[in-house]
């Protein structure tokens, strides 16, 4: 291996690592706020990538029908819950907007020239299609059992992941897809050429991390989410609705997931079931962060990307095995230092 190859591998590793870091952050966010280990995060990556590809191919994405179906079911569930709690059906503006939204999108998709839209608009449309699935998933699958033990929430996550992979196959078919790159050429830095997509991924990830930081540090909603993560009951007593916190964190997770999918789709061919293994690498990052620390999780995820790239060069058949054994030293260290017996929530 010479310097050139090392640079190339490093660039690959950084690109993937940046994506894993984004996923690690969103996984951590969802876990600390809702105690849900959000395994289906990977499906949002795949859905984002494949929806973008569908749009670029000029087809109407069938995903919009899933969105419409879930919105209808969520509305019915809200109506029934309203009747159970207050004795009458309530249908507010929020419900009306949620119910109308997918049908507006269906109309838009019919009218717009999908194939010839500028890429930024295609990306925006992809996000508009995929991201609302996040809060809808929270409403339908997690909200009814928001106080269940972590273990139950985890099993629900796995069940949802399994179902979403099946739905992905139904909607997108078994073929993989790759999208057009965002830009051509690259940036020459001395002996290294950073290619355009790498730059896009790194800049976008960095921008998103900064935006998240500002959101959590500077805005009231961000602080509300942080408060919920620190003390659920306390935050609730201060008027922060757990339902709001749940939906908001799932919204952010879906946004980050879909965006990661859009970023990664020009680099790797994505299949309906590719998301799982990508999000698991995000999980490895967040486990390295002890499911608590954001900076360590992001660094851990970056490390996962780098080790993956280099092990692909040295021992490509064992690449995945090497990546997943990364959690062992961390778990070992944590096991040896913790001596506390505590109750599971």
């Amino acid at each position, binding site marked *: 291996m010479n310097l050139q190859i090392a640079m190339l591998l490093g660039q690959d590793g950084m690109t993937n690592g940046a994506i894993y870091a984004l996923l690690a952050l969103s996984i951590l966010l969802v876990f600390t706020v809702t105690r849900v*280990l959000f395994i289906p995060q990977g499906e949002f990556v795949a859905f984002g990538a494949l929806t973008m590809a569908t749009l670029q191919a000029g087809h109407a994405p069938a995903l919009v029908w899933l969105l419409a179906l879930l919105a209808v079911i969520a509305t019915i569930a809200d109506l029934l819950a309203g009747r159970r709690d207050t004795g009458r059906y309530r249908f507010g503006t929020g419900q009306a907007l949620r119910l109308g939204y997918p049908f507006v999108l269906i109309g838009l998709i019919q009218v717009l020239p999908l194939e010839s839209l500028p890429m930024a608009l295609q990306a925006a449309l992809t996000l508009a299609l995929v991201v609302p699935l996040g809060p809808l998933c929270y409403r339908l*699958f997690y909200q*009814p*059992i928001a106080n*269940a*033990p*972590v*273990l*139950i929430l*985890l*099993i*629900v996550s*796995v*069940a*949802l*992941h*399994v*179902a*979403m*992979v*099946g*739905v992905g*196959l*139904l909607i997108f*078919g*078994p073929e993989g897809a790759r999208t057009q790159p965002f830009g051509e050429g690259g940036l020459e830095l001395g002996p290294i050429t950073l290619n355009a997509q790498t730059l896009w991924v790194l800049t976008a990830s960095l921008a998103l991390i900064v935006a998240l930081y500002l959101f959590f540090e500077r805005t009231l909603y961000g602080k509300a989410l942080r408060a919920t993560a620190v003390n659920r009951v306390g935050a609730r007593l201060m008027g922060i609705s757990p339902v709001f916190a749940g939906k908001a964190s799932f919204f952010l997770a879906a946004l980050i997931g879909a965006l990661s999918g859009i970023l990664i789709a020009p680099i790797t061919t994505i299949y309906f079931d590719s998301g799982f*293994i990508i999000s*698991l690498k995000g*999980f*490895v990052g967040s*486990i390295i962060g002890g*499911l608590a620390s954001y900076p360590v999780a992001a660094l851990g995820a970056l490390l996962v990307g780098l080790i993956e790239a280099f092990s692909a060069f040295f021992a490509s*058949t*064992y690449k*995945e*095995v090497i990546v*997943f*054994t990364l*959690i*062992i030293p961390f*778990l*070992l260290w*944590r*096991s040896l230092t*913790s*001596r506390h*017996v*505590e*109750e*599971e929530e």
Partner: protein
Amino acid sequence: MNPRLQTEPGTPASTTVPQTRRSNAPSTRTVLAVFLAALAFAPMVLPEFQVTLLNYIGLYALVALGLVLLTGVGGLTSFGQAAFVGLGAYTTAVLTTATELPGWIAWAAGSPWLALLVGLVLTAVVAILIGSITLRLSGHYLPLGTIAWGISLYFLFGTMDILGGHTGMTGIPPISLFGWELDKGGEIFYLIWAFLLAAVLTTRNLLDSREGRAIRALKGGMVMAEAMGVNTSRSRMVIFVIAALLACASGWLYAHMQRFVNPTPFGLHIGIEYLFMAVVGGAGHVWGALVGAGVITVMKQWLQDLLPQLLGASGNFEVIVFGIMMVLILQRARDGIWPLLAKLVPVRAVHKQISASAEPLARRPMPAKGELILEAKNVTRKFGGLVANNNMSLEVRAGEILALIGPNGAGKSTMFNQLSGVDTPSAGEVLFRGQPVAGKDSREIARMGMSRTFQHVKLLPTMSVLDNVAIGAHMRGSRSVLPSAWRLDRAEEARLLKEAARQIERVGLGEHMFAEAGSLALGQQRILEIARALAADPCLLLLDEPAAGLRYKEKEALGDLLRRLRAEGMAILIVEHDMDFVMNLVDRVVVMEFGEKIAEGLPDEVQKNPAVLEAYLGGVE
């Protein structure tokens, strides 16, 4: 007699729903006999396809049973069970087909039975390794760890040449049993179901034992169990290893039934399906594993035909149905299908027998009256800038009752935590029988003879009063997993239950012996905690607000009990609010305010002490 008989998960009584005793209902034994007879004749009357289906159900149920133990009973879970199945299958595949094996393992070549042994040992080693790095951490690290394990092993199966890569390995011989070759579906059927039934019965036995109580305490009672001397990390490891071994055995049977292995059935998605089986069937019940395996296997068969036609595309769309079904079950009926089925076939309820002839358990020698038992020396505990306890000293002697009192927020609970070893003082030390308490975990402290109750009652609400109290006697028994599974622990178990029953009678809960602990009134639950603490045969009893929620008569009875214990030489420390109760009972009082000791002495002196009056009544002008 309370009509709500015991219904612990996993024990024989779990086949009954709470209901009045029906004398005309069949006994569990009868129902089981009918089921066995039907099984025995199944291969003779059913077409081959159905027999194959039953074979698969048996194999899957064996794995799901492990998950029932792990998930439903122990509150842990694993997504990597399919990988353990694969470990069993590939071990036997390699050992029974290889022509050249390295010398150290050559002895196991060619015999499926030796291969089973090697597979089980290998599985146990892997499970212990995975367990030892995840089981001491919070419960969600094990499932995440098993996901990584499941994926890694699947990749290894697919890439290693010696294992045949993705094409797999062929030519695995059938198992032979006393010269009888089990090479037909209708023959290996009996072996599969014999394995499954043996596993179900031994698991049931295990859950109904000393170890079983410790295992059942893992879900929601770990802090309490540790305080009763249970090593919860070990119990978690035990059930994880058992679950892995059951999966390995299933893989061994699978390999010799199929006579062929490839990586597909051992992937992570199958590991997830096993968990679905356990949850759908009823993760808290041993028979739930069988029901779940049956339902999922049959549904899968049916949906794989139906859905592609319905949707006009080919693919494994049944996962959508399974995923949504799982979510609905977890939202609506977390106990799965088994409890609903059990309701359809009511069987006679039986409860545990207390043997009058069982030999009493050995007791620890009690310290002489007046001997110093517990001593706190200048204990200070700071939380950041807040000083919760400042320079607190107190001592408790054998045969005396000391009360620690003080207004709300005085730091009594913090002091209690320092004394019981739950928390470590910032300065000063606590000595129990001359040995420092700091740095010891609650298990060791329990072994030294300190036993406690909790301010917020910590019981296992679905277990009987008897079983809850018997956990207290955990460290007075020694019979471990294997003797329990094979019922070699009955003599010791009878002694433990007799001791538990004795303590229950002693505290006056005799008529509730077989009731669910959660059905008792709060005051009675506090009394139950005292019985549980006494079952540990302590020389020091720490009671955190024992009289809260008790009625007048109950308080009187509690007072009498504590006086009797004192007369026997027990040292007792009470943290209490109820002044009447304390002043008529205890020998000495320590009064705390703002984290400091403001008075100490006989009850009468303390009641007249101006500082105490000021603390309680806001000063005398």
